[in-house]
């Protein structure tokens, strides 16, 4: 009966709004902020920390990123890490791939149970928004499938300086709408019990952002 429901709803909507004028949308809000790259990085770091993410500044080159990742993984005593192919190749092939940490490359066949058995995930990002302390993943070769950055308990996310924008408006105009996206602002959280904030419910309980710039 869906066909007739469709017609009936649409004709009711048409009748209901007949003659209604669509107003012009005033877009007088800020479209960009004037800030240097280093100011944006600083603001992003500040906002991320405010949301209880850990922020680790790194020089913006692959060797340095790989080294810091390796240190992070071993310091935290993590035994396995999953990553999309591009990330594994660029940042996890060297020191991180030593004996201590097993690197699992997501080739698209890992099951949810497989992912649940891995200690951490490393991804890149599509971009980050300084003012709201947000990292956006969009499923590209660096961000990986959404499940990969969701199921493991610790998420290490590498953001490069040129990926940082000031405002949500800038992010929306840069992003490609139909890509599957996850906007992340700190680790998962709940305040459902007497408004007491608890970090880490179902999503990764720890979010570490490596800010390369």
């Amino acid at each position: 009966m869906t066909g007739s429901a469709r017609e009936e709803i649409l004709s009711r909507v048409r009748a209901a709004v007949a003659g209604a004028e669509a107003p012009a949308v005033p877009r007088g809000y800020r479209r960009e902020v004037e800030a240097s790259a280093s100011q944006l990085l600083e603001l992003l770091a500040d906002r991320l920390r405010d949301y209880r993410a850990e922020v680790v500044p790194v020089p913006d080159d692959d060797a340095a990123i790989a080294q810091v990742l390796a240190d992070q993984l071993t310091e935290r005593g993590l035994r396995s890490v999953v990553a999309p192919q591009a990330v594994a190749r660029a940042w996890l092939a060297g020191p991180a791939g030593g004996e201590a940490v097993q690197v699992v490359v997501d080739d698209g066949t890992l099951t949810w149970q497989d992912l649940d058995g891995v200690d951490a995930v490393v991804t890149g990002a599509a971009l980050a928004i300084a003012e709201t302390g947000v990292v956006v993943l969009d499923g590209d070769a660096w961000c990986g499938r959404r499940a990969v950055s969701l199921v493991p308990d610790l998420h290490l996310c590498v953001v490069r300086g040129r990926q940082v924008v000031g405002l949500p408006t800038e992010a929306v105009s840069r992003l490609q709408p139909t890509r599957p996206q996850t906007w992340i602002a700190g680790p998962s959280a709940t305040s459902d019990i007497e408004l007491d904030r608890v970090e880490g419910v179902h999503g990764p309980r720890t979010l570490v952002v490596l800010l390369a710039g």
Partner: protein
Amino acid sequence: MSAAFLGMPRRRLPETGFSPVQGKRPFPEAASAALSDPVLRRNLGHATGVIRRKRASVVGELPDWEELRSAGAAIKAETMARLPELLEQLEANVTAAGGVVHWARDAAEANAIVTDLVRATGEREVVKVKSMATQEIGLNEHLAAEGITALETDLAELIVQLAEDHPSHILVPAIHFSRTEIREIFARRMPGVDPDLTSEPRRLAMAARAFLRERFLRAKVGISGANFAIAETGTLTVVESEGNGRMCLTLPETLISVVGIEKVLPRWQDLEVFLQLLPRSSTGERMNPYTTLWTGTRAAHEGGDGPRAFHLVLLDNGRTDVLADEVGRSALHCIRCSACLNVCPVYERTGGHSYGSVYPGPIGAILSPQLTGITGDSVNDSLPYASSLCGACYDVCPVKIDIPSILVDLRARHVEAAQQASRVPSAEAVAMAAAAYVMKDEKRFAAVTGSMRLGRPLLRDGQLRGPLSSVMTGWSRARDVPAPPRETFRQWWSHRERHDGAASERGGP
């Protein structure tokens, strides 16, 4: 003639079966029960106070908040005016991305569609992310009757579901339970729970994590609503905090989203407005922890990321009736942020359950009666009177819904409906019409409320006397403060807000 009916209709009405948007008792009756529960009032007072302060602090950070509100209001008005074409565009784009679009005229039709879709997968258990639309149609109850278990995965919704209770707030639905009560609920009702569970919030949250993880990993069907649906691209958005939304939207092979027809937005670009307005108004955060955006099925993406099957159920369920009213229409602009609940002096004292609908507070007072229809003798007819018209809701609404004006208009419509049906004595109808006339105009109303304040010495036996002051009597009687305050609500509110202190520590929803 008693004055009480004027401020608030008190007629007892025939019950018409269970409806998630209509309670069994008129507001004043339901409210007086809540008012006699000091623990509930204290919890609510604390919760709304904390969220109010957080909201004020993050809204105050933005120099262009008013511009964002104006844009949000205009986009919503544009959406309503162009709704027929936008719905068709949304349908075309979702379909092109591999999704299937279904249309449901009412709750029964939507429930039947979802039931059939779940049945077709052969599954008997589904995971759900909190959604007002599915609460509105009573989906969980319907699925249960059909032998399908719908598991709520939002922590508060899980608490409420395990307690076999109803949510009391849009954003923090379990705010009426203390940690000790939640510990009891988990200990008794959560299968496999650690018997040594304490009432520490972290321990409780981890118990929920452990309980749900296995179920997320094995779930084959996920059910959600959506905060926004972009006509231009066919993209849906869910805004959340805990990651249960990501789980439900990412892991199951089949995803079913039940979405009110008013949730559509014209353009991708419009998200730049709403993804700023919603989190700051709702949880008082610059941004909520997780926002998921997806378009169709995995077949539409090179990376193969997305559900194998995606179904969008577009829901009317009374919305086209609301849309047909030029004044009431803007109730459909609501983005369910719950800011109006947290500033409402009436909500703060009576709690969500008093409204009898899944939509409580000021937005519930204008949306619920319009969804069920103002008949002159419906239980929901009392909701537009559940307000002091102080205007705080309008001031915080991110899409500038003029809730006080709609309340006044609905009161007038109720009086008219009651007159037409000749269900009330004419004297009452005349008095109510007079009240409605007064309240329809802001200046006239200010004059009345002002006179109420000045009229304080005119109290007799603790009750107000006189035709105009009786506008407020139904309400003041249901509250535990029988006399009008020395200040108007608005004056009192602004004083109180100042005494509330500085912004609290940042927290989640």
